[in-house]
């Protein structure tokens, strides 16, 4: 029997039981849609995060910090350790950051913010794309009292009610423990000289939307300490060999007491984690497709029983077993193709809706939380995600949908092909 005749015969059999075929197809649609939605959302999420990271820090930077978690380590790094690092090969510049969580009085309101003391000119040369003023100017040789604030400090509710405008005065308050073990308050009066451009969701060592920046020399005296939280190291280039050798050199210069983090390596780790999560999600979605496959098998077996007599007639007319097999597989292929095609469309639509509604809600929530003490990685702002359907996912989803349909139809199709004509004809 010709392929076109086999196909149209299979199609006529499907059309006979529209509802049943429709429901079976729906199973495949849901499975494929789940896979496509999860994978394209995951890919979109990963792309967005990667873009944020690439924007948030330069790939040719290293972050040097004392080993262990902050506070747990007995080893301390100080501002003058920067000179040691600057003496190492391939290092073009080293920027110390001293950080403390302080109360900031901005107009009528007081917030707990993360203040970083940095050298404005060096910091802006390392983070030339993110340590950029949206309004005001970042002075290369700042006076005492100069404050640079992140975009979300300036506009914490993202509704146009702004605080810390350029020229506004601000006051930073810190409770310190003195050498006499008594607590006393230190106040640092300042004035906002610049508001940074929005950085986006994440920053690593680099400027953050929730950051407050003051000149390092004044930070040292205000904090009463020269201990740095981290030193940002700028390298001559971002080649792996350079990153590796310089990291090793820095580590040995401090007797192994510091940890050196490469932004490129972190990006790599994040990407690895994401692909793992994606794979996991796709696996779960795959299970739903498997269930759809069992549905196909179930329906094929029912169909086989209902059509036993029909198969008998076909065989009496001289149809070969393998043609019967192909007719049954053809029905599964039609269901699989249709299900995969609709599923891919539906999955993309679903991903689009989730990206718009779901993540917008999450972004709004993060924005509503307002100013919080920032860690090395700050999550803030609304991340805009657009689902990405890569050709490999597209082809993979299609192939997987089709494959599941065929694999689960194999057994009923094989049984149909093996039916004995006499028995099949006698079947009521």
């Amino acid at each position: 029997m010709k392929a076109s005749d086999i196909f149209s015969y299979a199609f006529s059999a499907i059309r006979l039981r529209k509802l049943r075929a429709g429901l079976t197809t729906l199973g495949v649609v849901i499975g494929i849609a789940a896979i496509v939605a999860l994978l394209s959302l995951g890919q979109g999420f990963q792309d967005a995060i990667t873009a944020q990271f690439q924007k948030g820090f330069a790939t040719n930077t290293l972050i040097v910090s004392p080993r262990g978690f902050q506070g747990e380590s007995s080893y301390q790094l100080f501002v003058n350790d920067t000179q040691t690092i600057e003496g190492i090969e391939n290092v073009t510049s080293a920027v110390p950051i001293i950080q403390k969580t302080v109360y900031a009085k901005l107009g009528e309101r007081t917030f707990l913010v993360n203040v970083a003391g940095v050298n404005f000119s060096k910091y802006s040369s390392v983070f030339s794309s993110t340590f950029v003023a949206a309004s005001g100017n970042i002075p290369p040789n700042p006076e005492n009292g100069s404050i640079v604030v992140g975009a979300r400090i300036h506009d914490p509710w993202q509704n146009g009610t702004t605080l810390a405008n350029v020229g506004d005065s601000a006051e930073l308050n810190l409770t310190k423990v003195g050498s006499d073990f008594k607590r006393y308050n230190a106040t640092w009066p300042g004035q906002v000289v610049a508001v940074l451009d929005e950085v986006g969701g994440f920053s690593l060592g680099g400027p953050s939307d929730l950051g407050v920046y003051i000149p390092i020399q004044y930070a040292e005296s205000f904090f009463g300490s020269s201990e740095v939280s981290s030193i940002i190291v700028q390298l001559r280039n971002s080649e792996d060999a350079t990153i590796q050798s310089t990291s090793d050199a820095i580590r040995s210069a401090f007797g192994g007491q510091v940890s050196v983090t490469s932004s490129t390596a972190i990006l790599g780790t994040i990407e690895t984690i994401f692909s793992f999560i994606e794979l996991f999600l796709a696996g779960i979605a795959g299970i739903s497709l498997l269930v759809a496959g069992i549905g196909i098998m179930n329906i094929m077996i029912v169909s086989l029983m209902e059509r036993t007599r029909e198969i008998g007639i076909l065989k009496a007319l001289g149809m070969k077993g393998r043609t019967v097999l192909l007719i049954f597989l053809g029905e599964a292929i039609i269901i699989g193709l249709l299900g995969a095609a609709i599923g891919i469309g539906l999955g993309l639509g679903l991903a689009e809706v989730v990206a718009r509604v779901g993540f917008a809600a999450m972004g709004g929530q993060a924005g509503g939380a307002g100013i919080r003490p920032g860690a090395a990685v700050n999550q803030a702002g609304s991340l805009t995600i657009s689902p990405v359907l890569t050709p490999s996912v597209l082809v993979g989803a299609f192939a997987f949908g089709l494959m599941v349909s065929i694999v689960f139809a194999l057994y009923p199709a094989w049984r149909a092909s093996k039916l004995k004509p006499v028995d099949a004809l006698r079947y009521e």
Partner: protein
Amino acid sequence: MTTVVEAVDLKKTYMLGKVPVEALRGINIKVEKGDFLAILGPSGSGKSTLLNMVGALDKPTAGKILLEGINVSTLSDNQLADLRRSIGFVFQFFNLIPRFSARENVELAMAITDMGKSERRKQAEQLLESVGLKDRMNHKPSELSGGEQQRVAIARALANNPKFLIMDEPTGNIDSKTATEIVELTRRLNDEQGVTIILVTHDARLAAKAKRTVEMLDGAIVQEIAN
């Protein structure tokens, strides 16, 4: 004269649960080209079993069934399928595909043998016209009377120019007036077109229309009559 069908000491034993049932106990018959043989017998006499062997739908337990000299027992499933393409079947319950129209049912038999679309369509229309269903060929079996359905089945059986026609109680499920029409049609096919026909029935009046009759009882031929 060429022998189309020859059975030599044909035996068939079924297992009914654990009890062996001898459906055929050594049948010897010969059907020549152009013959019209009726196999007459009550139900359970083994006539349908014999027909299944003759139609290459089943293989014997012992003995030989030769179709144009080819021993059916030696053939593979695929070869049997090929062989069945040259045999026309007409069943008691018509066995048409319900979702197809009369024309599509006839075309299906030709589609199985890889005939092209336009050719099989033309031929299906001619065949249906010859059985008097020119105006009904786009109707589905459910829209046709029993007699009409059986005529579609005959048209389908003739679709691939069969070497012989096997008819299993073709009038068993239709009223007597229509049955007469079917019998007349069968006679005409044999008389005018020389189609070899093997007919199974328990109706002696119908068997009388054949050129010769063999009577079966309990899996054996008990009598042979030339009409």
